[in-house]
């Protein structure tokens, strides 16, 4: 049987507290109460598979989430798959819907969908009084639980991510994230991981703001189901090819199934949700057909990526807008690059060596000024969900040298010489409650700072 994951807002519009939603809530209560914390099917154990606070003694399978690299998407797909199988077994045991599947939250779906779904705002479950609603988490950021501050489209929209044609570099930017198997600098999230994934984590705040606790907020699973759905939407295009490298395809991760038995899957085992994992999304094309991928033309003499402009000093983001000028290499052959731009090359803005002691929980918009337009051009966001993990010294696998890449070819009209007048502007799109309080107090810094080592433009 192929299960269908549906948009929770559509479910709730059909019927408040739709049986699928109610079954999810009741199953969470069972996971909390029905299993000891050491059982892999318990709520806290499942959340700990994603992450635990630094220093927590590790149980099997804990603290293995993948971020800022090309395993982000397959790891989370596997994680949700096994979580869903555990919840489904509990739902069936409780007499819930036989076709139960994890719903997703499409915050970019229009209307009120950019607010948290209604069942996640209520403190009590419907029915007998006095039963706490596990979907409600009190410490979410201001304006989330009451729906008074809808999420802006600049942080919910996957448009820029879906427009990215490459899964992994080269060239950058990518849809799925930077490679991990070649040594050298890494810590390069794909566009989908940045926006909307990281942005939504930061915007919801509270438990969701930290990988060590994110899985404890029930909205986490619906958020990631949406990210997983967006991977399917990206692969609708036959030109969008997942990595063919064996180091990606054979990367294996272990989880626990509905019987608490250990299971393992490789990235190549989760490429098709329908044929390999028995689930689909309600907006997947019907009837299902295996997409025949178009092989990419081998490019053996790709022109070198060329640095054309960069800042000469680090930049510090403290909650207020800041604009930084970039120095342009006077020896750049603008005419040659312009000709190459007309063919296949792109102008890439890189925000390099991002660092912060803690995630300030703020989403910064990245804009280009000086392009002769009335308003700065928004080209992407910076949000540092999981930055704390950069500083953990438990192993070499943790990401470091974090960099974000944005394709700005369209913004600069493909004209490299325009970069001489450009400034890069960082401005907070969404401040968290603490930052707002500190700004109101006119504190020197609105929140713990983010260091940007360098901002650069290259032609790739």
């Amino acid at each position, binding site marked *: 049987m192929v299960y269908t994951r549906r948009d929770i807002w559509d479910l709730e519009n059909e019927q408040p507290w739709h049986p699928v939603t109610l079954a999810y809530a009741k199953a969470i209560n069972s996971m909390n109460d029905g299993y000891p914390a050491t059982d892999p099917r318990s709520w806290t154990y499942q959340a700990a598979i994603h992450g635990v606070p630094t220093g927590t003694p590790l149980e099997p399978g804990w603290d293995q989430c993948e971020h800022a690299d090309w395993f982000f998407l397959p790891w989370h797909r596997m994680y949700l798959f096994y979580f869903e199988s555990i919840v489904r077994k509990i739902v069936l045991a409780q007499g819930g819907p036989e076709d139960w599947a994890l719903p997703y939250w499409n915050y970019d779906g229009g209307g009120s969908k950019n607010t948290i779904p209604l069942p996640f705002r209520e403190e009590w479950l419907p029915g007998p009084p006095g039963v706490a609603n596990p979907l409600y988490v009190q410490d979410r950021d201001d304006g989330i639980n009451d729906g008074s501050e809808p999420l802006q489209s600049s942080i919910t929209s996957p448009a820029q991510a879906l427009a990215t044609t490459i899964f*992994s*570099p*080269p060239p950058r930017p990518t849809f799925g994230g930077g490679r*991990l*198997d*070649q*040594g*050298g*600098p*890494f810590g390069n999230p794909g566009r989908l991981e940045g926006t909307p994934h990281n942005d939504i984590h930061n915007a919801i705040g509270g438990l969701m703001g930290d990988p060590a606790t994110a899985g404890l907020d029930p909205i986490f699973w619906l958020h990631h189901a949406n990210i997983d759905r967006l991977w399917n939407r990206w692969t609708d295009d036959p030109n969008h*090819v*997942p990595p*063919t*490298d064996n*180091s990606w*395809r054979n990367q294996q991760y272990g989880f626990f199934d509905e019987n608490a038995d250990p299971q393992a899957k490789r990235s*190549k*085992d989760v*490429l*098709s949700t329908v*044929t*390999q*994992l*028995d689930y689909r999304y309600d907006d997947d094309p019907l009837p299902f057909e*295996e*997409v*025949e*991928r178009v*092989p*990419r033309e*081998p*490019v*053996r003499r*790709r*022109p*070198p*990526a*060329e*640095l054309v402009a*960069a800042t*000469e000093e*680090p930049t510090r983001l403290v909650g207020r807008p800041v604009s930084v000028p970039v*120095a342009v*290499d*006077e*020896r*750049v052959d603008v005419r040659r690059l312009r000709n190459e731009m007309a063919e296949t090359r792109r102008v890439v803005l890189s925000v*390099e*060596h991002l660092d912060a002691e803690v995630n300030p929980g703020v989403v910064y918009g990245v804009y280009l000024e000086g392009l002769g337009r009335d308003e700065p051009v928004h080209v992407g966001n910076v949000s540092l969900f999981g930055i704390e993990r950069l500083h953990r*010294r438990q*192993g*070499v*696998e*943790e990401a*470091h*040298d974090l960099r974000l890449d944005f394709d700005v070819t369209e913004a600069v009209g493909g004209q490299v010489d325009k970069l001489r007048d450009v400034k890069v502007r960082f401005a907070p799109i969404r401040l968290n409650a603490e930052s707002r309080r500190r700004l109101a107090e006119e504190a020197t810094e609105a929140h713990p700072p983010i260091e940007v*080592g*360098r901002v*650069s433009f290259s032609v*790739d």
Partner: protein
Amino acid sequence: MTATPAAVPGSAFLRVPVGLPRLADRIVIGATVLAWIVLLWDDRLSGGAADSVIRVTFGTAAMMLPLALPATRHVIASTFRSSRALSVTAFLAAFVGVWVTVGLAATIVFGLLERTGFTPPNVLVGALLIAAGWQALPWKRVSLRDCHLTVPLAPRGWRSSFGCLKFGGIVAARCVASCCGLMLPMFVAGSGHLFFGLLAMAGAVGERRLLVLRRESWLLSGVALGLAVLTTTSGADPGSALVGWFCAIPQRP
């Protein structure tokens, strides 16, 4: 459920490195090959203090330059074309300079130790055991991780050159910390010892290549441990024995 992987045709595109790293590859590989040629074919490197300095310098360059490849790529990708030659030179000079200093210091120390009566193979067994132990320690993994950290570099001018000089020193110092275990048997067996030198280089490069796997440190620990056992049971330096055996091949009927 039937697991049927989606048909994904191969793509050579993803395996082709971008252009600037290719330049880094050429510079580093060229310099490494040159150093090996000088080291292997210059018959002047047989004795005397000056020859020892030359031997250590080229030996260090031959073995350690491959470790600088990722960082050299970073330098090249981070600097404007107008400043690139000076920046790369500054980086490599600092990197090799730190290693040569360490190599010379180790040569002197182990030379003095040898004069005071420490002789292989017992000391070699100890060095191999220390190498095996170091590879298995969590500090080793941390220092290996630190080897891959880069710093933001200014794109041009004196800031770029100075930054690259500093970066070269930092990377080399981190590499010394990470590779000291692998280098120890080479210095104990005699500075420039071919077998242990090659083994250390292969191990150090290999573990960077296999950074994401957890087993590489243990693998190298196992190799060092195996050599220690071999040395103990045979009562001889296995490196010299293997090199001797290899060199004798052409003379066999």
